[in-house]
């Protein structure tokens, strides 16, 4: 299907110029080793032709899918894309970290010809992760056939201001979707589940149906304790983590929708991954997820639900979940001179709590390095560390270091959690990492919980020293479709 900009020759020229400029910027960016060139090309191209994303995405023969949410969108997108590839679809996706519109524009324009037409096979589909705040604009530009929403936690309040506000933005965007679209929502998150009310698009929920993971009471980091319909207290029968659980409103009667896709018999094997049974309308499947933590089971479940709505066989999702590798800094294992390190991206209190739970699972002590930066992508407001349950580290660490632009805030947080003063405090993330990893005895692992830009600078240094592959090469490797 050719995608010719409608009508005027001027528009045609603008589209071609946009694609040309974008591609040049990308080639330059890579040649100059300025990173993967994943955002800037799309940015430039969109400036030249604001209709670029809409124009190019219309030409995708199988339409496109958007995955959004606070946590887990990268992993969910990866598993979903893996399953779609296994089903024979040619998947166009955006590399992690480029989840604003310019990033999506870049991933589309690399598939365009010099004349500004999308040159893709008939089996092409777009599967993109989208930043929470950019979702309304992305939904409008891309007219997705399927939207998957993983969860909604408080995250970067300096960017998104209020959790309620983000929910309202999503709701407005979702209500514009046509009846032909499908929306897949997390039943366990009240604010997300409620997004399904009053949509023209068809709605499918996914959720955990496993009582053994329920804990009593809500964590401090829980954000949606109130009924999204009437504002009264929600009564939690079970809570999994943060505000995710089985709930009902005692006032208006609104309750957790019954999920069409459910995970049960979940067994988490520490850092090695998890096993679960997933029920879909096509039957039950035993899943093995190669990524650690209960939240990754939920991500696999979200991907299974999304895949099923695309008509992809559950067996293929099963394979994709089993073959999933940690995305950029999500539980990424690194070996430096024979010493082992495991890097976990954390960006909000609920993510931090889950990361810590994962690292501390089992018994014994751990070696831990926490990194906190306050650049735009990290959130310039670092107050969230006071909502994270750092107290869980008490008596469980044999080494505890802090690093980053706000390392001293972390040190202070540890002091008020009555933990011993840190073994290492360094504003320079890279120096701190190599010092900490050097002090790690052979056979032990250094666990690194770190925010976005801190991880980025650490990773760049690891690439430079040849310890890990650049992320865009990883993404390309991930795109290689097993036959």
């Amino acid at each position, binding site marked *: 299907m050719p995608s010719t900009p409608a009508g005027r020759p001027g528009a045609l020229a603008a589209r071609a110029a946009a694609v040309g400029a974008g591609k040049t910027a990308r080639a330059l960016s890579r040649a100059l080793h300025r990173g993967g060139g994943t955002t800037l090309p799309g940015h430039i191209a969109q400036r030249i032709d604001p209709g670029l994303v809409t124009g190019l995405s219309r030409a995708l023969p199988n339409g496109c899918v958007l995955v959004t949410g606070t946590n887990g969108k990268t992993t969910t997108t990866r598993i979903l894309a893996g399953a779609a590839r296994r089903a024979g679809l040619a998947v166009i996706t955006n590399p992690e970290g480029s989840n604003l519109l310019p990033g999506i524009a870049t991933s589309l324009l690399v598939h365009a010809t010099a004349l500004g037409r999308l040159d893709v096979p008939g089996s092409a589909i777009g599967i993109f992760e989208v930043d929470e705040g950019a979702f309304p604009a992305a939904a409008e530009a891309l007219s997705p056939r399927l939207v998957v929403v993983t969860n909604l936690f408080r995250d970067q309040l300096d960017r998104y201001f209020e959790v309620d506000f983000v929910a309202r933005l999503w709701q407005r965007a979702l209500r514009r979707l046509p009846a032909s679209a499908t929306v897949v929502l997390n039943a366990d998150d009240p604010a997300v589940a409620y997004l399904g009310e009053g949509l023209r698009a068809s709605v499918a929920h996914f959720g955990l149906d496993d009582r053994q993971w329920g804990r009593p009471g809500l964590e401090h980091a829980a954000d949606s304790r109130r009924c999204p319909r009437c504002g009264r207290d929600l009564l939690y029968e079970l809570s999994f983590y943060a505000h995710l659980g089985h709930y009902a409103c005692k006032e208006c009667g609104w309750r957790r929708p019954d999920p069409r896709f459910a995970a049960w018999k979940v067994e988490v094997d520490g850092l090695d991954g998890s096993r679960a049974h997933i029920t879909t309308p096509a039957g039950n499947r035993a899943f093995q997820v190669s990524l650690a933590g209960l939240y990754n089971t939920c991500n696999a479940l979200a991907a299974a639900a999304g895949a099923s709505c695309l008509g992809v066989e559950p067996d293929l999702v099963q394979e994709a979940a089993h073959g999933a590798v940690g995305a950029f800094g999500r539980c990424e294992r690194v070996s430096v001179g024979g010493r082992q390190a495991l890097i976990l991206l954390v960006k909000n209190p609920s993510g931090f709590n889950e990361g810590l739970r994962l690292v501390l699972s089992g018994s014994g002590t751990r070696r831990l390095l926490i990194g906190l930066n306050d650049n735009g992508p990290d959130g310039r407001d670092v*107050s969230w560390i006071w909502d994270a349950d750092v107290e869980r580290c008490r008596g469980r660490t044999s080494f505890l270091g802090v690093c980053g632009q706000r390392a001293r805030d972390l040190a202070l947080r540890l002091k*008020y959690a009555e933990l011993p003063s840190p073994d290492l405090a360094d504003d320079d993330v890279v120096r701190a990492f190599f010092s900490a990893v050097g002090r790690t005895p052979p056979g032990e692992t250094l666990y690194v919980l770190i925010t976005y830009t801190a991880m980025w600078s650490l990773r760049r240094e690891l690439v430079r020293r040849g310890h890990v592959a650049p992320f865009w090469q990883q993404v390309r490797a991930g795109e290689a479709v097993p036959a």
Partner: protein
Amino acid sequence: MRLIVGYLYPSVMSQYGDRGNVLTVIRRCAWRGISAEVTGLDVGDRVDPDRVDLVLIGGGADSHQRLVCEDLLRVKGEGIRRAIDEGAAALAVCAGYQLWGHYYRTATGEELRGLGVFDAHTVHRAAQTGTRLDTITRAGSVRAVGNLVVQWGTTVLVGFENHGGRTYLHSGAQPLGRVQAGGGNNSEDGLEGCVHGNAIGTYLHGPALPKNPALADHLIAAALRRRYGDVTLPPLDDDPELTAHEQALGRALARPGRWRLRWGEGVALPRGRAPRARDTPPHPSWFFAGNPVCLLTAGESEAA
């Protein structure tokens, strides 16, 4: 000595690390052998002025404010006002500060009546300008978001502000201090916060107390004085507190780095202007606006 902390609406108005303030009071008391006890006061709970020495209230969204404002007036108002008149200390942060003024007009123009502890009122910037908050960019354009540095007597306070409301002190009301960097009360008059007796209202999140130990001790001492007369707090080793304060101050006065470009916020960086302490940190609207002009003007437009 004993100190009772009344923590208002712990489950609703505790959005921005506010429990760090509670933790700071408890620990700094405990380290000095003062037993501090925290009472959570949720919707429906009355405030007994004799059973509270230090009242803390944190931040929340407009919807949270709507939720608690009735309760604050009808159930708790009397008790809080009496406690403060009798010399109890208080720290009201952000949304809590707004509700302790005479009224708060929200983004939709709805007027929430406040406690009136502070002789001030607050109007959401969107209500002032008639802005519809239907996109992140527009919502960002009316908010004061960024690091906030305040001169409080001889002490410098550092924190983070994130608010859509603009607070105006009435004549005679005493501000907490002068803004050194950031927006403060209203981004217009250079004032930040409000003081009435031993009650302090402020936009400082961060949370405010851990990194500003002088402010924490000021509140603790004031709260104790009501019951125990003249109290002098023995000094603590505040090295980690002051180092964190220094680092945060450095970040607050630093110019934004290369992340703006990498993150796709714009293709041009402001150049040719030396950093000034008065520079307002860049506004988050540039995240989504992608407009180089925004990068240059966001700080100024806030005060317009």
